[in-house]
C-alpha cells in the first residue's frame, strides 16, 4: 500500500516544481523587498563561480539584506584571489558576510573548517541565506537547501526578469533622463571634460562622446533597435536613430559651452583657445532637425518618423538652460527638445554605483 500526500501538500509541491522562485518567496520573506537585487547578485555569482572552482577552496557567503555604497578598496565577491587567499590563511574557517552588491561587509570565524553541514546549521540558527561554494554551488536557508528541479525555468525567469526592464522607446524622456543619470551626470559613465578644466572646457568633438554613449544605452538597455549616424532618404544623416515596430524616433545631439580644439593635422587637443558653441547654435540645430523631418517624412516614403528629439547638453559654467526656443519649433508636432546641465556637483549615488560596476565588468573582459 502506498500513502499519498494531502491535496494541500500536492498543490504546494507542484508549485515548488513549477515555480522555483515560489519556494524562495515563501520561505525567505526578505526576498520580496530585494527580488531584483537578488536576481542581479545570483547572475554575478554565476559569473564568478567557475573562477572559484579552480582552486577548490571551500567558501560560504552569508547574505545581508542590504545594499551599501562602500568606499573603493572594499573586498567584493568578484575579488576571487583575495578572498581565497584570506580563507586559505584562516584554514578555511571563515564565512564571508556580503551585501546584495556582493561587497564583503564582515567575516565570521566559526573556529573549525567550514563544511555544508556547518553552513546549513548556521543558516538555520541565524535564519539567513548562505551560498556554499564547495564541490557544488548550493544555497541554504533556515537549514534547508534550495535545489529547484526546473533549472531552465529559473534561468528563464532570471533573464526575463532582468530584461523585461528594458525601457520602452515610447517613454523616450525617461530614457534620456536615465541615460543622463547613469552615464553622463558627473562623468559617471563617460569622460567629457578636458583634463584640468573640469566644469569649464569639454574635450574636443564632445558631440561624438554623447552620441556614442546614448547609442550604446539605446542599443543595450532600451526596447528598440538603435543605429548610429544612419542615413536618411535624402542622404543626410542624423545622430542616433531608434525604431520599434516600424516607428522611427531619432535623436540629434547638441551641446553648448566651450570645448578644446585640435590644430589641423595634429592629434593633440588644447584648451588654450577653446571653441564656443552658443545657444543660438543649438536653436539653429533644432531648425535643421525640423528640416530633416519635413524632408524625410513625405508621404511617398514608407518610413514614418514618429518623433525627432534634440538633446542639448549644457557645458557652460553658469548653465544657460532652459533654452527659449522659437514658437515655430515649440509648435512643430514631430519635434521635442530635452536639455541637461553638465556642470553638477557630483554624480548621483546610483550613477556612481553603475559606473563602478561597468568599470569592473570591462576589466573582466
Amino acid at each position, binding site marked *: 500500500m502506498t500513502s499519498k500526500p494531502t491535496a494541500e501538500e500536492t498543490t504546494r509541491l507542484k508549485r515548488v516544481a513549477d515555480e522555483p522562485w515560489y519556494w524562495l518567496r515563501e520561505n525567505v520573506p526578505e526576498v520580496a523587498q530585494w527580488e531584483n537585487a537578488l536576481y542581479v547578485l545570483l547572475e554575478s555569482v554565476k559569473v564568478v563561480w567557475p573562477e572559484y572552482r579552480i582552486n577548490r577552496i571551500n567558501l560560504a557567503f552569508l547574505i545581508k539584506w542590504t545594499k551599501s555604497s562602500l568606499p573603493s578598496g572594499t573586498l567584493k565577491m568578484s575579488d576571487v584571489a583575495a578572498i581565497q587567499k584570506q580563507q586559505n590563511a584562516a584554514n578555511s574557517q571563515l564565512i564571508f558576510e556580503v551585501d546584495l552588491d556582493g561587497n564583503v561587509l564582515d567575516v565570521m570565524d566559526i573556529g573549525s573548517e567550514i563544511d555544508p553541514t556547518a553552513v546549513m546549521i548556521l543558516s538555520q540558527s541565524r535564519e539567513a541565506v548562505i551560498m556554499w561554494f564547495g564541490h557544488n554551488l548550493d544555497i541554504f536557508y533556515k537549514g534547508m537547501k534550495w535545489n529547484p528541479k526546473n533549472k531552465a525555468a529559473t534561468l528563464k525567469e532570471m533573464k526575463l526578469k532582468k530584461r523585461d526592464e528594458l525601457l520602452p522607446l515610447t517613454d523616450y524622456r525617461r530614457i534620456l533622463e536615465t541615460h543622463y543619470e547613469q552615464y553622463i551626470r558627473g562623468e559617471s559613465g563617460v569622460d567629457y571634460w578636458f583634463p584640468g578644466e573640469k566644469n569649464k572646457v569639454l574635450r574636443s568633438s564632445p558631440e561624438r562622446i554623447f552620441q556614442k554613449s546614448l547609442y550604446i544605452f539605446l542599443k543595450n538597455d532600451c526596447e528598440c533597435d538603435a543605429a548610429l549616424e544612419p*542615413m536618411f532618404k535624402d542622404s543626410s544623416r542624423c545622430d542616433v536613430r531608434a525604431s520599434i515596430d516600424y516607428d522611427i524616433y531619432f535623436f540629434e545631439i547638441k551641446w553648448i559651452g566651450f570645448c578644446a580644439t585640435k590644430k589641423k593635422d595634429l592629434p593633440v587637443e588644447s584648451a588654450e583657445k577653446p571653441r564656443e558653441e552658443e545657444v543660438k547654435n543649438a536653436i539653429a540645430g533644432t531648425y535643421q532637425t525640423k528640416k530633416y523631418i519635413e524632408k524625410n517624412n513625405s508621404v511617398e516614403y514608407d518610413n514614418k518618423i514618429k518623433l525627432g528629439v534634440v538633446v542639448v547638453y549644457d557645458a557652460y559654467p553658469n548653465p544657460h538652460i532652459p533654452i527659449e526656443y522659437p514658437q515655430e519649433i515649440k509648435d512643430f508636432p514631430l519635434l521635442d527638445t530635452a536639455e541637461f546641465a553638465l556642470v553638477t556637483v557630483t554624480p548621483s549615488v546610483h550613477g556612481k554605483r553603475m559606473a563602478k560596476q561597468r568599470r569592473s565588468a570591462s576589466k573582466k573582459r
Partner: protein
Amino acid sequence: MINRPAYLNDVLFALYAAEKLGWTALARTHFQRILYLCAALSDLANSEWGYDFSNTLYGPFNRYISTAPDELVHQRYAEAIEVTVQRDSKMKATFRATDAGKERVELIAKLRREQRRLAWIYSVMGVLTVYGPTVTSKLAFIEPTFTTMKLENRKGAIELSGENNQSIQLLRRLSDQLERDYSIHLDTPVSHLILYFDYLSRDIGRSEPK
C-alpha cells in the same frame, strides 16, 4: 527558389511553436526576427533556408513574411488579437494559431522535410524562450551578418551563405576556442544555439533601469 507556401508554413510553425513554448502572442516584427535567426543559423541544422531577407532600416525584412499572418487569418489558421489601428491607418496586431492552424501544422509535419524545418524553428525558439520576444527582436537586429552590411551601407538581400555568414563564422571561432582552451566540445546544434545567443545577448539589459 522556394515556393510561396513556405513563408506561410514557416509563420504558422512559429505560431505553433510559440503556443507550445508558452510565448505571448507574436507581432509581425517577431516573425521577421525569429525566422531571420532561424535562417541565419540554419547551417547548424545542415539545411538550406530557401528564401532571403533584405537589409532594411527596420532590420532584416521579407515582404512575404510580413503579409503571411494576414493570409493565415484569412485561411482561419491564425487569429489576430490585440488589434490596434494607428492614425496612419496601419494595423498593428498580435497573432496566435487557431485549433485548425495547429491541426494543419501536425498534418504538414508528416512530410519529412517540413518536419525538419518545424523542428529547427522549434529548437531556435526553444532556446530563445529564455530571453523572451523583446530580446529576440534585439538579437536579430545585432546579428553579425546584418550588422556588417549596415556598417558597410550595403543594401539588398542579406547574404547568409558560406563564408559570408558572419554568425556561423563567429560560432566556429567560439566553439574552436572552447575546444582548444577548455576542452569543451559542443556536440549538438542546440548547444551551439545556447552559446551563440548567450554571447550575442551579453550586453543587453546590463544596466539597472530605475
